[in-house]
């Protein structure tokens, strides 16, 4: 059985279409996250083990459609997963890594969180691109029994990095690092530790 010439042409056409579609795509999607391997128990573990409920994270960004725009190509930069989901997963991971239980039994503390900023800026330089990633997370802790609000804080993570060539990988790395910094601020906040020690005692 011989291949039809149209099959070859069809294959070439498909390849060309993929190349054009990728080149002309107006969106660049970054798989931003907070990997398990990069988190560990820290100051937050100084509070006795608590049961914590984390509500859905509210998206309070001024622009919820994108995290940035590529300065050279004009592409819209987005995340592969919804930003509130990324932030909630990161918070849950940090809480559990510090020895507190999430979503089991009657909670001692309720955490409400919101994303105020989650953005990536690219600044063209001489022979390099400078990325600045910013993550601002608002966290409110309430006593689960009384409902009383105990603490309200904002955690800011900013990472900047210069690379020779602009790339999605470099942008993702910067956003990962900015998110990690915001989470480290959360996990090493002495007031957060004090509040968690107080609830349920």
């Amino acid at each position, binding site marked *: 059985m011989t291949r039809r010439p149209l099959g070859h042409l069809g294959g070439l056409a498909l390849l060309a279409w993929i190349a054009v579609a990728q080149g002309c795509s107006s969106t660049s999607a970054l798989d931003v996250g907070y990997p398990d391997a990069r988190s560990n128990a820290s100051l937050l573990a100084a509070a006795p083990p608590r049961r914590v409920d984390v509500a859905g994270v509210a998206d309070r960004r001024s622009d919820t459609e994108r995290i940035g725009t590529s300065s050279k190509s004009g592409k819209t930069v987005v995340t592969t997963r919804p930003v509130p989901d990324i932030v909630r997963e990161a918070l849950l991971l940090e809480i559990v890594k510090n020895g507190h239980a999430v979503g089991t*039994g009657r909670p001692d503390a309720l955490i409400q969180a919101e994303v105020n900023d989650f953005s990536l800026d*690219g*600044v063209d330089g001489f022979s390099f691109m400078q990325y600045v990633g910013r993550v601002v997370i608002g966290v409110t802790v309430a006593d689960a029994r009384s409902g009383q609000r105990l603490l309200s804080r904002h955690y800011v993570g900013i990472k900047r990095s210069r690379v020779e060539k602009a790339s999605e990988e470099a942008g993702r790395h910067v956003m990962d690092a900015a998110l990690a910094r915001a989470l480290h601020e959360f996990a090493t906040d002495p007031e957060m530790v004090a509040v968690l020690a107080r609830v349920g005692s």
Partner: protein
Amino acid sequence: MTGDLMAPGLDHWISRLTAVAAILLLALTASGCAPSTTTPAAPPPPVARPAEPTLSVAIVGTGQSQFAVDEPSAQPGRTLDEVLRWYPYGGMLRPLAGVLHRAVNRYFHTDRGRTIDPALPTPPSSIVGQAMARSLRASGRFTEVRVLDGEPTGDGQPADMIVRVTVPTWGVMRVRSGDPDLVSGFVDARALMVARSTGVVVWETEEDVTAPQRLPLESLTRDRDLARQELVGVLERAGHRLASELLYSRSGEL
């Protein structure tokens, strides 16, 4: 014969099934009556919790700091770079272009740097060290946190750990393109923690720190107090950032 052999086995299985059914019924009833919120929680994962603090630390600001107003978009160099891309031997000329670009930048930077230099009364590394000390004290993870003016000598109570803080560069940097471009204060800080008894480096980090505020450069060149406030703010932020990373990475051992 067969029926005789089967009869005791059947009775046995029926009684076993009845017992299992009774247990299941009891369990279902109990769970149905119990309030859902009192479901026993899964035990939290075992975590090594920080012990009582036993270590004291002394922080020393050290080294030279260079103040810079860094605008990476300087057009002469960028344009030359773009031209060299199309020139066959552009790669060979690129180092020369870099030197030319830096010379142009230095001229502009020096000029702007003078305009917004906040003339701090203390070295930048000292401000970073003070802020780091405040954050470490607030954490409660050290028996004592001191800030020293210089390297520790034999006088006085020695600290268990010495943290040396340096700020190689700090200043103002363009962080968003636009009209006008927006700038932020920045600090590149390093910290090195050494065990005093052994001289072993137990922790070190390099942190790029950027102020959250973004302002037009002109607002800083016009208002000296605002510039000073922004730059001191980002230096203090750098101290807090160093403390946060120390506490995050070493809490289990402090």
